[in-house]
């Protein structure tokens, strides 16, 4: 999630209010996705840059653009946390050697099976 604040808004509200609202909505949605889906992770770039503990040190003097050091801090954290998995494609689970699905709870894996179950039933 981007830590960059809005510069303008067509909402009719003050841009500070619009920024907080916009970020809050996005943060709530990303949080929900993270909690509901096992294949979604959340990278707290927003928190790293904007948190009070960062004392604004990652913003340029315009208090909007993120400094290179800020970007580096986020990316360091990202690669440290997701080493080896960050670039992994979200491919459907493969069958294991014994022919069973690696992740039997996966909805993706079930898609073909679902279609086949229906076709079999409705062909009769």
């Amino acid at each position, binding site marked *: 999630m981007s830590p960059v604040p809005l510069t303008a808004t067509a909402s009719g509200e003050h841009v500070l209010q619009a920024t907080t609202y916009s970020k809050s909505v996005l943060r709530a949605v990303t949080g929900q996705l993270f909690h509901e889906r096992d294949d979604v992770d959340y990278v707290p770039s927003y928190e790293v840059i904007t948190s009070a503990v960062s004392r604004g040190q990652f913003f340029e003097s315009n208090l909007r653009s993120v400094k290179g050091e800020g970007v580096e801090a986020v990316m360091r954290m990202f690669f440290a946390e997701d080493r080896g998995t960050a670039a992994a494609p979200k491919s459907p689970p493969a069958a294991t050697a014994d022919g*069973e699905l690696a992740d*039997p*709870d996966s*909805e993706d894996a079930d898609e073909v099976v679902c279609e086949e*179950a229906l076709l*079999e039933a409705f062909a009769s």
Partner: protein
Amino acid sequence: MKRLCIIGTSHIAALKLGWERIKENCPEIGITFFGAPGKHCEQLRLVDNALVLATDEDARVFKRFCGTSRVMVDYDAFLLVDLGIGTHSAVLFSQKVRTEEQSRDDRRPISDACFASALRGLLGNAFALDLARTLRKVTRVPIGLVPAPMRSSDYPSPRVKALVNSGGDRTVARACAQAMREVAAQAGLRLYPQPDHTLDGPLYTSPVYSRARERDTESEDIRNKDRNHMNAQYGEIVLRVVLPDIFSEARVAA
């Protein structure tokens, strides 16, 4: 003739197969099956007193399986199958949290009351409930809910295994059943839980009802190892519970 419309995910397949076995003995009942794999079901909309699909893609999929992409809502009863109702979401949720009875591990501990409340929220947001509310706008006929069957025990899920190991499988099954009852009651729907005698433990179905049992399990094709969908015998059992009840007026929700 009483007309029942069964709407749901691929789990309607077992009911269709079961119906083929018993329909000769039920000349007073007609059943229309309307379903598709789960992801294609969530765009069902009510237009001019008919349920239709929002996208051409979903409509094509429904037509492929059921021969139609549109059903009128003038049936004498509706039965909603799966569409998010079942233990799946509770099992998934339990990967992140544990209740008081479960052994300590790195999941977040929450109270039984909090867990129950969360399950009510999860199930209350299932598409089946959305669809029921949509139907309620235009009809007062009985609407039943049939949860997705649990996975066959000969195809154990890593997530359920973890729950069994932590002693949480009974807790989760019990809490989920209670949440389903409450959500159904609140929405004025009739819940037809998975029959106890088809279960093999709290969160599994007995393998004899698995669709795969009737297939060549030696095949390399993973479709022949389908332990998620149930067979005609299972579908018949469910229909024998549903059909004598679903048309009765006594339980029609106020």
